[in-house]
């Protein structure tokens, strides 16, 4: 009988271990990024590692291909995640050559830690838009129509940049939202809208563009009061600072700006940092 007990316990233990291993595996993947390749890049092609805000994924992947085409033997690797996550990883020694943030406050964290190799340059902007499920079942028209109790509104939490922007437009419009959920990221908001769980959400213009047919976007004039500015810079300690700077130049240059515009991003404020 004790043998049976033992084998049962072993099965339970195995299952738990498997679950743990899966969790660890998943967590490992997200933090490692292109790390080891970047460190051992001497033998093969040179690897340029770019840490960029998740919202930049599509235009940056396009720009990465263009960069690789222009620079023979250079391999551009990306790590896309929330800007604060990326700053945290760089502070812990992640091998980033270039960092592009979705807002100035996370870039400030990098600068405060004295990890920037050059002054950050503001290269693009993004504004908020109302996202509704296809067909707009709740008949949303503007910010004022988002305030009723019967509407399932989802926004970002004030702690994250898109939530701070949502608060700013709320103030500017003089309305009072009562969201059913304050999400961690703009992607979570978009998923709640595209799955039809939420009647409306506040996301960035670029997210609506990216979401395709499942989501409709409604522009509103108060979006001007919360313009999100994206800065980019090279990171101190990079093995190929010149190459990193060339990538920054590509992003801030004409073709980079065109690419970003194609995905719904706005032109940078000319006011400077």
């Amino acid at each position, binding site marked *: 009988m004790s043998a*049976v007990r033992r084998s049962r316990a072993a099965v339970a233990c195995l299952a738990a271990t498997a679950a743990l291993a899966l969790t660890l595996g998943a967590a490992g993947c997200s933090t490692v990024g292109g790390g080891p390749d970047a460190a051992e890049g001497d033998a093969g092609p040179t690897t340029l590692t770019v840490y960029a805000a998740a919202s930049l994924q599509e235009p940056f992947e396009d720009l990465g291909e263009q960069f690789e085409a222009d620079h023979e033997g250079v391999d551009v690797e990306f790590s896309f995640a929330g800007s604060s996550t990326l700053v945290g990883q760089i502070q812990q020694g992640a091998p980033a050559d270039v960092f592009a943030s979705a807002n100035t406050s996370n870039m400030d964290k990098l600068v405060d830690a004295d990890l920037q190799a050059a002054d950050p340059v503001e290269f693009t902007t993004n504004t908020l838009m109302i996202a509704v499920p296809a067909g707009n079942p709740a008949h949303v028209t503007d910010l004022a129509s988002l305030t009723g109790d019967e509407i399932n509104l989802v926004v970002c939490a004030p702690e994250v940049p898109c939530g701070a922007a949502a608060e700013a437009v709320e103030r500017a419009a003089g309305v009072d939202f009562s969201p059913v959920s304050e999400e961690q990221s703009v992607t979570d908001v978009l998923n*709640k809208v595209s799955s039809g769980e939420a009647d409306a959400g506040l996301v960035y213009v670029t997210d609506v563009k990216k979401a395709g047919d499942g989501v409709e976007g409604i522009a509103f004039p108060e979006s001007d009061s919360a313009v999100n500015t994206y800065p980019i810079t090279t990171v101190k300690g990079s093995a190929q600072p010149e190459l990193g700077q060339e990538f920054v130049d590509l992003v801030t240059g004409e073709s980079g700006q065109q690419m970003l515009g194609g995905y719904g991003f706005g032109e940078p404020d000319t006011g400077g940092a």
Partner: protein
Amino acid sequence: MLLPALLGALFVLLPLVAMATRVQWGSFAELITSESSLQALRLSLQTSATSALACVILGVPLALLLARTSFPGLSLLRSLVLIPLVLPPVVGGIALLYTVGRQGLLGQQLELLGIQITFSTTAVVIAQTFVALPFLVISLEGALRTAGTRYEIAAASLGARPSRVLATITLPLVLPALLSGTVLSFARALGEFGATITFAGSLQGTTRTLPLEIYLQRESDPQAAVALSFVLMIVAVLIIAVARRRVTA
């Protein structure tokens, strides 16, 4: 034997020690007694307790079925019941969304009844129960098989009805396993994050449990996130220790 055991203990303890060294003890009390932290802690304890209860209500019959009956497809059913153990919780949340969400399998019927589950505290409990249930079922089924059926058969042959056998023989025999299984599922519910954020959303006082609050605080105030993580850890250790003493006493 001793060295690997020590290594194993170190493997688990060292990260916890490392975290304790990062807690700013000077402002610890202030960090963890903010309104949002206290609400999150209260919500976590309430929902986890409810989920543990739900696990007992649903899990005991299921464990009995798996341990005491035999029918074609039994082993398949057992593997399916254990799936939430290996499923990434976020996927579990998506599956729940497809089940009781507005556009989900049962969403239409629920909407007709005027029930909306997503974005409610009920959704948090459902998500936690979904991921925690296998822990109870696994511990209890193992204990039931180990206990065997000898006493049950004897009681039945002396004229005891099945319900009496269950109440006076079967359940008392596996009580320690039932308790530890309940504690395990409570602990799993307490740490639940992925399914909750996907399925229930995140709103202070309604759906934002302590793990969600920790993840959110990390965005703006990493110190508070570390302090809260420490609180969550202490709560978990206390509950497991107390429950263990009850079980062995």
